[in-house]
């Protein structure tokens, strides 16, 4: 690791402008974590037009702050209102709200903040140490490796991520297809442009992102039935006791590690990490009945895990140029807009961006640790604003924002179309995340694949004979066939143990 570049990164981050953007980012992140409705991916999508105007490092610092800041914010409503602000804070509801009902809301929030901070920091250290190494290994990657890696990333997101796997794969394939719209860089021929001048340049990533995530999410939220009104639990005691800290230290440590590894995995991320950490904690507990009734570990573990995962999910993006989840896909697109190509060369070519982002996370998490507790009262007051009032404001930001990119009304309509697509996808159970991810990687996959074919002189077995790409293809095949193998195993065990009534067996065949 280049220590000088690492230290230079800190110098960059502590510039007043970058500190300000970091603060803005984490505050916005906390805010949308608290407010039900928009998530970090959607917010980043909506704020993408802003990145056109500001310095690349500042922009990425801010957008990154939104992502891990949201993990802090989601906890507040989970604990105080039994209402998860973010998907990654859903598990915190079980024990967090139970603690709040026992008058220990402050304990829960405090442990959550500390756990989040520790989880994030452990993850950042891991990121600091691991990222340069991975980037260095990846420098040997050629086009075949990239093609295989990008495809593996898309596949993992579809299989591990939320939603039905088959549908996620369909969404991803559609994303790959959409990426081909426009002029083919190799031959100059127009593909799927239908003689439209605007389409000849391909579909702008920002428009798709704002449409699918921004408008789609806004439309989807409009349809929510009237939930019940909540009474926030009082936050009396602020700090957890020493006993609480001791009791949760193990959970925090384990949660951080689980979060770190699950975050790196494409398709994993904060949501899966929080679930896995909670389940692991419950499984190893001496009296698991405590869980769901106010076990402090039930708050510490998922909160550490989700922050650790949110941080470590930056690794594939910064070192390989592969986004691990939808939010990373947004950041990938943002980097492209700013003229920065994510990949293993990033640490060498743009150490300011690489280390600037990583080091900003240290500072951002410190800011969050300091701010998250005092601001709880403010956030509960902000929750009094009816969602119906915030909705048109978000809508206007999105529409006016997309116009400012190219001063084009056509963009608005394309965005609206994708907004409708995103809404319909969510209604019919297709996740928009894999589509955006595949779209973002689509041109990379195709370019790498075609270049590979040129290298192999038309022989596709070249993919398998090269060691790294061969290994990746092997993993690809295993991941693709895993669900089939699982189904076959279930069939065999259910036939063998006919006497035992199996509980779930939602037969989809």
């Amino acid at each position, binding site marked *: 690791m280049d220590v000088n570049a690492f230290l230079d990164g800190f110098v960059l981050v502590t510039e007043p402008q970058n500190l300000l953007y970091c603060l803005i980012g984490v505050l916005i992140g906390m805010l949308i974590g608290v407010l039900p409705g928009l998530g970090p991916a959607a917010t980043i999508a909506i704020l993408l037009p802003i990145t056109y105007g500001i310095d690349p490092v500042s922009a990425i610092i801010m957008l990154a702050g939104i992502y891990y800041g949201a993990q802090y914010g989601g906890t507040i409503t989970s604990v105080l*209102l039994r209402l998860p602000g973010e998907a990654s804070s859903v598990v915190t509801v079980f024990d967090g709200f139970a603690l709040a009902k026992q008058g220990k809301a402050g304990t829960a929030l405090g442990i959550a903040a500390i756990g989040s901070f520790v989880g994030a920091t452990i993850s950042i250290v891991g990121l600091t140490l691991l990222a340069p190494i991975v980037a260095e290994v990846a420098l040997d990657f050629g086009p075949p490796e990239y093609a295989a890696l990008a495809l593996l990333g898309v596949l993992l997101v579809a299989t591990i991520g939320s939603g039905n796997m088959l549908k996620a794969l369909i969404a991803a394939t559609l994303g790959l297809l959409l990426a081909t719209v426009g002029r083919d860089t190799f031959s100059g021929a127009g593909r799927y442009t239908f003689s439209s001048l605007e389409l000849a340049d391909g579909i702008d990533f920002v428009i798709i992102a704002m449409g699918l995530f921004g408008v789609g999410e806004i439309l989807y939220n409009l349809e929510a039935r*009237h939930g019940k*009104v*909540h*009474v926030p639990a009082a936050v009396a005691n602020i700090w957890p006791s020493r006993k609480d800290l001791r009791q949760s230290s193990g959970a925090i440590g384990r949660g951080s590690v689980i979060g770190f590894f699950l975050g790196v995995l494409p398709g994993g991320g904060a949501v899966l990490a929080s679930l896995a950490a909670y389940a692991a904690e419950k499984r190893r507990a001496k009296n698991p009945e405590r869980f769901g009734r106010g076990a402090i570990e039930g708050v510490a573990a998922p909160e550490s895990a989700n922050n650790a995962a949110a941080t470590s999910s930056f690794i594939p993006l910064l070192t390989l140029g592969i986004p691990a989840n939808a939010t990373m896909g947004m950041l990938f697109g943002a980097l492209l807009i700013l003229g920065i190509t994510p990949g293993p060369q990033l640490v060498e070519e743009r150490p300011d961006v690489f280390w600037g982002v990583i080091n900003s996370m240290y500072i951002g998490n410190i800011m969050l640790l300091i701010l998250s507790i005092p601001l709880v009262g403010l956030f509960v007051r902000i929750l*009094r604003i*009816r969602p119906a009032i915030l909705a048109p404001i978000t809508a206007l930001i999105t529409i006016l924002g997309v116009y400012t990119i190219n001063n084009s009304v056509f963009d608005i309509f394309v965005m609206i179309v994708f907004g409708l697509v995103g809404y319909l996808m969510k209604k019919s159970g297709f996740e928009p995340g894999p589509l955006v991810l595949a779209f973002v990687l689509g041109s990379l996959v195709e370019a790498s694949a075609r270049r590979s074919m040129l290298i192999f002189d038309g022989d596709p077995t070249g993919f398998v004979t090269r060691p790294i790409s061969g290994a990746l293809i092997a993993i690809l095949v295993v991941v693709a066939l895993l669900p089939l193998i699982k189904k076959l195993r279930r069939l065999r065990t259910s036939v063998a143990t006919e006497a035992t009534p199996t509980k779930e067996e939602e037969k989809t065949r």
Partner: protein
Amino acid sequence: MTILIGYVPTPSGDAAVEHGLAEAARTGEDVVILNSPRRRSTVDAHLVGDDVEATLLARAAEHGVTAAIDHADHGADVVDTFEALVERTGARLIVIGLRRRSPVGKLVMGSDAQRILLHASVPVLAVKPTS
């Protein structure tokens, strides 16, 4: 017969509860306390939790009055909720608390109390907090 008290956790609301309970004790009626949150809110400052509810019921018991608490939510116009409850319970009187609102304040932000006073179908007792 029943007396309907509109309650929010403010001095005006407390005054309304006091006067409403006193009136009910005087005439031997029971009381329905309406604590109505704004529909479609995530959090409403006016909605009270179980602990406050218990306090209210205890206060009613002190006066020797049977009380029930209703949390029917209201939309843009709170009068409808009051009216629906009046019909359901057969209340003969509404008791609400008033707070000082300037004319401009009433113009921009509206006044629920004023609307209830003007449109309720039963007599309305409007009380001010004892300062």
